[in-house]
């Protein structure tokens, strides 16, 4: 069982899971996931298709029970979803509405189900930018408009916790930026926004905290910056004279630096640059280049989810090693 890398005060947690296991027959959709998500901010939920993200969301919303383990949402156990349903809004997978009804009537039916005033419908329509289209049949809506309507439905209860599955799916670039801003605004108001997405650049741009799942196993849970710092901390060095390449490799290895195979890429953070330079200088080599490599979330994610281990740093390094061997 892997526990969250970042220890978080559970009293301030929006979501906690403890050994959450969900099996569908012989398929293990979630494998003893233990994670604690902070309250407030935008949390990214990442994982390849079939990794267990939707299963996790469904358990959190009380739609399916776990095979074993426990989870809490806003401090309440998921076995009692009625206690927190009024504080949680969700867009689960594709937006789901009655096609023959207008957007306004679809939202009205959900508002009535939650016992909300009808004025709230107009508010959320305005928030997601569907003003002027609210009386059109949902059947005529594009995927992007349905997506906005789904977000509007999730916003209806003015939730403390918003869970959005692929919220920017089908949106045009301007719409994506708009929704990203909306998510940040909602988080800035004190809400917790959990976003599941395959658009890694979007996650990187919008999220403060990250959960990565692969094959039902928790790969990483922690602040976004920490993952990028840990997994992506590398420095590329180059000697002034190409003839010194081999000598530099030997010198850096002797000084205890870890290098990637057949390259002059050293595992280390930008703070290690001075020490690297010093090691090269002591070997009588002048460096012409000392460049920190900034990896994107996409690089880290692809490496991590392709690697056979769950340790993000080891996974990242292992995948890189494998890639260089293949090359």
């Amino acid at each position: 069982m892997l526990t969250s890398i970042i220890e978080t005060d559970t009293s301030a947690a929006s979501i906690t899971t403890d050994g959450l296991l969900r099996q569908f027959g012989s398929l293990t959709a979630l494998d003893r996931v233990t994670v604690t998500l902070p309250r407030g901010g935008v949390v990214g939920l990442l994982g390849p298709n079939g990794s267990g993200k939707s299963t996790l969301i469904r358990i959190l919303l009380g739609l399916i029970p776990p095979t074993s383990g426990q989870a809490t949402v806003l401090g309440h156990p998921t076995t009692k979803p009625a206690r927190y349903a009024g504080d949680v809004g969700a867009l689960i997978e594709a937006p789901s509405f009655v096609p023959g009804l207008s957007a306004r009537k679809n939202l009205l039916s959900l508002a009535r189900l939650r016992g909300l005033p009808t004025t709230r419908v107009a508010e959320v329509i305005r928030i997601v930018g569907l003003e002027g289209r609210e009386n059109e049949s949902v059947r005529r809506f594009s995927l992007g408009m349905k997506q906005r309507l789904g977000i509007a439905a999730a916003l209806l209860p003015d939730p403390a916790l918003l869970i959005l599955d692929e919220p920017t799916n089908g949106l045009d670039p301007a719409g994506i930026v708009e929704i990203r801003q909306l998510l940040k605004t909602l988080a800035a108001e004190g809400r917790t926004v959990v976003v599941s997405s395959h658009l890694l650049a979007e996650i990187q741009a919008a999220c403060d905290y990250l959960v990565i799942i692969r094959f039902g196993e928790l790969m990483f849970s922690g602040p976004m910056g920490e993952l990028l710092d840990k997994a992506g901390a590398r420095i590329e060095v180059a000697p002034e004279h190409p003839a010194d390449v081999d000598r530099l490799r030997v010198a850096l290895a002797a000084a205890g630096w870890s290098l990637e195979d057949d390259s002059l890429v050293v595992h280390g953070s930008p703070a290690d640059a001075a020490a690297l330079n010093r090691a090269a200088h002591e070997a009588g080599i002048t460096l012409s280049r000392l460049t920190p490599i900034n990896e994107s979330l996409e690089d880290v994610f692809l490496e991590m989810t392709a690697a056979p281990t769950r340790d993000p740093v080891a996974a990242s390094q292992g995948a890189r090693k494998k890639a260089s061997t293949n090359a």
Partner: protein
Amino acid sequence: MRELRSELTRLNRRGIWLGWLGLMAVFAVLINTVIYTIAANGSAPPGGGPGVAFPTMATLESSSGIVAGVSSAASMFGVITLSFWAIATASDYSTGLIRLLAAAQPHRWRLLLGKIGALLIWTALATTAAEVVNLAAALPSAEAAGISTALWMDDLVGEIARAWLTSFSASVVWGIIGLVLALLSRSSAIAISVGVGWVLLIETIIKTASSEAGQWLPGTTLTALAQGGTDDLSFAGAVLIGCIYAAVGLIIGLVIFIRRPITE
């Protein structure tokens, strides 16, 4: 109450108005045309086909003649009701709306009762529509067929009320069967196919094989209920068996809806 209002909002759409009430009205016109045409031809009433029980000339000329169309096509009205209960239930699954509904109201029994309540209101509306159209169609049809309507006004309100109540009751049981089939299959197509197939085919075969067993089957029972009793089954017996079908259906529906994980 929230669940009822929410469901009524979703059902209040053109497809339901035109489809459900429209079909009931069309069948009411058709059945009146058919039963009076047969009577006008002077031939003995046929034994009735699946879902239809033709009235005798004596029935048509009695005080209940004015509502004979409603009770004659009770099973057809029932199948229409079954279909719309099934559509209203299964479409929550096929559209994925059930995820939003269950997340918003985790007490699923309340969701289901709200749906049943809304469908009962719609069934009452549809029954009323069928009866209104039947009343409008019966008199010209009877006059065209040369059938005496002298006794039709004897207990007009009572006959209309009785026909409405029995037709509504039978339709509700049909609807509950549709709801359970939809919950089991999560597909309106499968639920309707099974329901219609049962009335048109399976029950007929069973009745042919065993007339005694056939008296207890849903089609026969609910036809007897709608007609205020038949030669095979008394009205009291039909009410009792109909109540059992409804109760068992509701229990099965509630258990399935509450306990089954929402995975799709």
